[in-house]
């Protein structure tokens, strides 16, 4: 299996393989490191960080659904300051590219978080989670407002030289319009998709199963939707895409790449199989060998339509 190049590039960010661990599904890396050698993965995306710590939603926060799960964690996180003080020492030690995911309730907060974090060398890129409520506009999501996504992209780009990846919401009618705005405003890449809004009720109590009433659907149930969104962006906008949504096995990684992904992030599967990232990178290497592919990046967008 020598000679197969699994490395990929997202703008100026080079990853040794295309498999990243998705935001909110690996915390800050330390727990999952008991199961896998983090040096062997493409990179880690941190849990969404906000300027100040967030407590998150009251329980119940999650519930299982057919081939998926709903979560309404409520962006519980330690905040930028504690992150820098307490989570860094561990993250610095591992030799895997770190992407900081940022969530905020105003454009100013996105900018402030980026400005603080960008001075740290070991942060290689930012992923901006725009699927959070805009407190100034009465809780409407930034993620389904084209001009807000454009404003966040250009404002964050203005305070960092590092690659900026905008994580898009699937809860919109045309996701490629958002990717287009990100490109126009100087964003380096998009990642797609975040979770889909869903809910579940207990038929005996007639109450929602999660406290927040609605939650984000993730897991294999959303894979076809995610794949269609990646394909839509790929066919309409020339921008690097990180594919996310329902990936559970190496075949899914290849499928996302064929549909236009430069790299992928895996989320829910980490809860079930903490070794998934390693197993997938072994799988895609074997696939390349069998298919006579020497560089995995060549399969990106290689769909035959």
């Amino acid at each position, binding site marked *: 299996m020598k000679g197969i190049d699994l490395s990929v590039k997202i703008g100026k960010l080079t990853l040794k393989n295309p498999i990243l661990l998705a935001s909110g599904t690996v*915390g800050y890396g330390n727990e999952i490191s008991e199961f896998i050698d983090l040096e062997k993965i493409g990179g880690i995306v941190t849990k969404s960080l906000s300027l100040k710590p967030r407590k998150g939603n*009251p329980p119940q926060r999650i519930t299982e659904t057919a081939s998926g799960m709903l979560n309404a964690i409520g962006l519980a996180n330690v905040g930028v300051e504690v992150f820098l003080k307490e989570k860094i020492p561990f993250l610095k030690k591992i030799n895997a590219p770190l992407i900081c995911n940022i969530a905020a309730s105003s454009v100013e907060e996105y900018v402030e978080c980026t400005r603080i974090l960008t001075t740290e060398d070991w942060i290689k890129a930012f992923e901006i989670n725009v699927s959070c409520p805009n407190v100034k506009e009465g809780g409407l999501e930034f993620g389904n407002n084209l001009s807000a996504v454009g404003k966040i992209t250009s404002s964050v780009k203005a305070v960092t030289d590092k690659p900026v990846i905008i994580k898009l919401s699937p809860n919109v009618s045309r996701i490629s319009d958002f990717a287009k705005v990100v490109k126009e405003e100087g964003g380096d890449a998009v990642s797609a998709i975040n979770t889909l809004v869903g809910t579940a009720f207990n038929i005996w109590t007639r109450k929602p199963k999660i406290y927040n009433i609605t939650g984000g659907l993730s897991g294999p149930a959303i894979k076809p939707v995610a794949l269609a969104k990646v394909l839509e962006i790929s066919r309409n906008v020339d921008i690097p895409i990180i594919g996310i949504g329902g990936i559970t096995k190496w075949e899914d990684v290849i499928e996302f790449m064929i549909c236009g992904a430069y790299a992928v992030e895996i989320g829910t599967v980490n809860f079930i199989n903490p070794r998934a990232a390693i197993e997938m990178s072994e799988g895609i290497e074997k696939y390349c060998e069998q298919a006579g592919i020497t560089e995995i990046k060549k399969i990106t967008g290689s769909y035959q339509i």
Partner: protein
Amino acid sequence: MFNKNSSVEEIINLNGSVYLIKIYSPEIAKQIKPGQFLNVKVSDSLAPLLRRPFSVSNVEGDYLFLMVNLLGEGTKILTSKKKGDPLDILGPLGNGFNLDGDYELAVFAAGGIGEAPFPFVYKTIKGAKEIISFIGGKTAKEVVEYGIENPYISTDDGSLGFKGNVVQLMEQKKELLSSKKIKIFACGPTPMLKAVQGFAAKNNYECEISTESAMACGFGICQGCAIASAHQSEKYLLVCKDGPVFNAKDVVL
């Protein structure tokens, strides 16, 4: 913490819908402590998707025992396994009971399938501490008497033992709980744990409770299993990592 392929050795029905599953799992058996739990993948397909958490019920040599109440899809698959079937187990997880300490009398309070962790606790402290057990269920079919000796029993419908719940039974038997230095260990549904929490506070007994929550990962990465802390209002504790066993004074149920 291991992610190990283990195998089913034997499954027996204890009572009603409760089964005892014996599993060959030498690495985990060596490390696991009373009150800790395991997160079990019951199938090798995507259905059901998530692992299922179970307390360790007992350990003998290379074998783990789970006491499983058949509830839905996951426990149905698990309790229908055959000898030799492989099982993907993550564990040991969480913090178990703190069994050391200067108490003289251990009081077990178990509600329904909350009896699961006690055989292992019983075995571990037997001889070193005096033990009194209270177990309760809705009906006689829910009461499992495996692995602990001479328990006091209650059922809501009076079909076995005292008619009422475990805490009412403890109140009634309070003369047994005087004079000695007592520590209560409790496991069961949340309303019952809440009642035990109140009972312990009122009588100034030390008390540890094993809590439950919906879980995805079981090892601290999803933040799905939040439980309110009695001391810190600015953040939640995690049942899987900070618990599942808590000092009764540390959590709000």
